[in-house]
């Protein structure tokens, strides 16, 4: 599948754990999309993925590639940074939109 580069066992262990942990927490967050009852509750769910999920997987990637390339690889941090900065933008607008629409709808139904 690729240019097999030998990585130390501890590196692969740590990478594996981080990967699975990150994916698991992301999945839990996504499950929240299914299980939580109202929209406002559901909005909380994806932030699991954007924070801890992304953080651990980015870390896994950094560790793995640093080990492969035998020099520190840092630019994955950019991903973490961008996700952290941009996710709130969407969610804030979305929540505000939902509130606004709820108000309009309640006004309509009261008429």
């Amino acid at each position, binding site marked *: 599948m690729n240019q097999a580069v030998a990585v130390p066992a501890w590196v692969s262990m740590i990478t594996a754990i981080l990967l699975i942990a990150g994916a698991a*927490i992301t999945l*839990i*967050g996504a*499950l*929240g999309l299914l*299980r*939580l009852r*109202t929209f*406002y*509750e559901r*909005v*909380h*769910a994806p*932030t*699991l993925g*954007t*924070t*801890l999920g992304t953080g651990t997987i980015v870390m896994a990637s950094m560790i793995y590639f640093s080990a492969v390339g035998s020099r520190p*690889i*840092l*630019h994955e*941090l*950019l991903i973490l940074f961008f996700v*952290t*900065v941009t*996710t*709130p933008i969407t*969610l*804030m607008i979305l*929540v*505000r939109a939902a*509130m606004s629409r709820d108000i309009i709808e309640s006004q309509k139904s009261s008429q």
Partner: protein
Amino acid sequence: MTRWIRFPLVSVALLILWLLLNQTVSAGHILLGSLIAIIGGWSLTLLELPIARMRRPTAMIRLSALVLADIVRSNIAVARIVLGDDRGRERKSGFIDIPLELRDPYGLAALACIITSTPGTLWANFDASSGTLTIHVLDLIDESEWIRTIKSRYERLLLEIFA
């Protein structure tokens, strides 16, 4: 010089961004990156970005550590909720209003990012005229507890930084 580098922090950040993207610290890229960073910073003057006054690096570090810890903790808490581990109690979620003293746009933006990024809390609305922040909390046990947390843990530090 100051005419061109109105936002030195931004320019430095852009240079770092450039070097990180290219994964190098070669002289050529530092030069090229600087050029791009200066142009990038200058572009913000076109967009009339408010001038940021940031102080107290220690407060910044403290805030970062605090946020990081809160995020990890909240992640676990919300994961439990999602997985249905409510420990037998009725969970309640809802909006709360928090009066803020913070007015600095950067401070508010930072607070927005922090609150939204922390699982379990959501920045829902901010009324600039009254300075009221509305947040949504997933697991709302005690409203005043939340108000205190936000104000004392985050707003205080942010006021220090962006005063």
